């Protein structure tokens, strides 16, 4: 229980720190929302009037305080650019990004772990060099490029999906999933390759250890030892790595969403930064921070399940 309380406290502190940093960074870059909205039509009088209307004439800390107070009472504010409540504005985008991230993560988890074990078992085999080279290639190709290739192949040529016609998540969920699958694949490929390589090396490393030799010398077969003992030990760093992946998928998704014209958080975040639309940026930043911390927490909990030595105060 103490552990959970500590975690939740950490989560809150992280989010507040992140939100303040984002706020502060925002006020340091030149150009404010009013200037950007008025663009080349700006005159000093109109600018002053608009800044007043948007509340941008208040000092930084006052604005941050107002935002924070709103946040804790569930009011994310009104978007400066869209004049819409931030919650209403980002909710559909959060869903899209969440689905894309989860889809991509499932692909990674489901494919990478068996592939990694298989790759370790086959190490030293005839095609090992080819496999490693292919793996390196997969790691090196950036998702946006894979995305363009996949679009060219499956949309332009094969017409399996229509690029630019993303089905409404609510009305055609399966259609949307199908569309997102291509983006999820391009996002997952380098991460799968990295996970495979990592798992392969940790498994191979574990296989050299004394307890493995002992287990085998006692008559256990290699496969049994691998699944019963080695994998458990080898998985701990991989789970931690997958947690980071969870965070990085969201970051990578910002680019991939644009390649596939998927209306997720990415595009909105980038545009809101350009527009200095701080209520939207703050909300998205906090969601991302929450996501990252949550992934870390879940990874810790899973690792504690796998490896009892990691359990805090587990002995008492």
């Amino acid at each position: 229980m103490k552990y959970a309380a500590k975690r939740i406290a950490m989560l809150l502190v992280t989010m507040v720190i992140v939100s303040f940093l984002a706020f502060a960074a925002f006020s340091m870059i030149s150009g404010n929302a009013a200037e950007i909205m008025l663009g080349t039509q700006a005159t000093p009088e109109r600018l002053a009037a608009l800044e007043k209307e948007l509340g941008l004439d208040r000092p930084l800390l006052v604005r941050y305080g107002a935002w924070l107070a709103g946040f804790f009472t569930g009011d994310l504010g009104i978007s400066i650019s869209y004049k819409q409540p931030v919650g209403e504005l980002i909710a559909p985008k959060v869903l899209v990004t969440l689905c894309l991230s989860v889809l991509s993560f499932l692909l990674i988890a489901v494919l990478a772990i068996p592939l990694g074990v298989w790759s370790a078992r086959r190490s030293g085999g005839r095609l090992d060099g080819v496999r490693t080279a292919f793996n390196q290639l997969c790691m090196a190709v950036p998702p946006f490029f894979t995305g363009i290739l996949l679009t060219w192949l499956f949309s332009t040529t094969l017409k399996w999906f229509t690029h630019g016609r993303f089905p409404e998540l609510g009305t055609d969920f399966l259609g949307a999933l199908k569309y997102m699958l291509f983006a999820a694949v391009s996002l997952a490929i380098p991460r799968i390759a990295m996970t495979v390589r990592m798992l392969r090396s940790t498994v191979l490393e574990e296989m050299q250890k004394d307890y493995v030799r002992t287990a085998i010398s006692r008559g256990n077969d290699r496969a049994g030892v691998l699944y019963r003992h080695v994998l458990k030990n080898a998985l701990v760093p991989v789970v931690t790595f997958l947690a980071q992946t969870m965070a990085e998928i969201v970051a990578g998704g910002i680019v991939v969403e644009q390649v596939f014209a998927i209306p997720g958080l990415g595009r909105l975040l980038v545009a809101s930064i350009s527009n200095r639309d701080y209520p939207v940026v703050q909300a998205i930043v906090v969601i991302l921070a929450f996501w990252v911390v949550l992934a870390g927490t879940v990874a810790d909990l899973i690792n504690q399940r796998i490896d009892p030595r990691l359990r805090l105060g587990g002995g008492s």
Partner: protein
Amino acid sequence: MKKKLLALLLLVSLLGAVLTGCGDGSTEKAPEDGQEPNGSTSVSTPANEVTVGIAQGLDESLDPHKAVAAGTKEVMFNVFEGLMKPTSTGDLIPAVAEKYEVSDDRMTYTFTLREGVKFHNGDTVAAEDVVYSIERCADTSEGAPLVEAFSVIQKVEATDDRTVAITISEPSNEFISYMTTAILPADYDQQDTAPVGTGPFKFVSRAAQDNIVLEKFGEYWGTPAYLDKVTYKIIENADSLMMSLQSGAIDICSHLTSTQVAQLGDDFNVEEGTMNLVQAMYLNNAEKPFDDVRVRQALSYAIDKQGVIDLAFDGYGSPIGSSMYPAFGKYFVEELSNYYTHDVEKAKSLLAEAGYPDGFEMTITVPSNYQPHIDTAQVLVEQLKEVGVTAKIELVEWGTWLSDVYAGRQFQSTVVGVDASNMTARALLERFTSTAGNNFINYKNADYDALFAQAQSSYDDAEQTALYKQMEENLTANAANVYIQDLADLVAVRKGLEGINFYPIYVLDLSTVRYVQ
């Protein structure tokens, strides 16, 4: 044990969040959307609708009196109308008004409203709506009026149900041009997010950074739109936009580059218009060495406009020589385009005269989100090398450009395109008068100011036009900026569609677009 439980709980709640998260969307979004799922699976929909690709976010208020971005106006042109509206040939025709009369002292405009003009919410346009709309734009209680030119308005009065009289403080030839300002229903406060106007299309919905949906307005007073529905799909990424054109998701897309057009394939026709921008290397006239007219002239001789157009734009584009573009017709002075012919020797001797025999170093600030301007700047850098000027490109984000270059005037030179907010020469030329708040190049020329004052007090159209032309000549002769071109506007239109008309302002009129029978 507790920890195991906790772990399990967390896992389950995470999974639950994920599943319900995705699932929720299906129930939650449905009523909001309301429409049928517009045939998202079949490519060749028989439906009478098009999808227009736009590369700009439209991330601002949709209230036509508050929206400033060219991209927003381009879309909302289809939704709103003023008492008058512009035509593709650059004229003004009555819209919400049926006719107007100008008093003998030229200070009172009396508009008679057209009978039976309806707002998209079903209400009939009444004189009070017009009074409300005009007064809203002229209101100075917040400091400055929403439409600056409305500061001349003294009184707006509904003389009866269908007549509105507007009195201005001094006669003006251009006042009527500002009457294109949208007429909105009085007492409606949702314009920011759910705009209501009188145009041929009505607003249906907007999804931020995703799309804007318009539908044909059945009770439109004029020639109705041919299309039943228009979806603007926002795709800012250029590669992604191309792929959507090729996949069949997008039917019409303006402002393409020549390279993009070359990749289009056989499914599209390409229409060529002009962007209606004055693209130039704008020089900070207050900054050394550009405070010297000889240096500015030298740069004008040093660059080769046609070279820029050929190299960076595959030959699409119209060379210009002053702050005016061809679509303006009567104000455009074509000869000025050839005032400075590409002449390296002359440029060098002018530089030597000005005290820079070995050239100098300069910075060209370019907003990073406008590829055509970046491409232009790159060609300019090469051309300037020939006369010994070493230019370096500095890319800045648009917001930074607005605040540092445009508002702050902290720059040496910048390559951008300047547009006109309405169809008057004043919209392009007033900014270079010494006291103009938006004179970001710090141009100060007494003759120019005098000509502008004279033009403003002239009530004879021919005389005023002549004065504006003299102002353009003044800008050219003094090489206020290194003028380059009006960019070509290349529009991809799916075969089977027709009726695209180009306007002298930055709009895309979809009411005339139709499928060929």
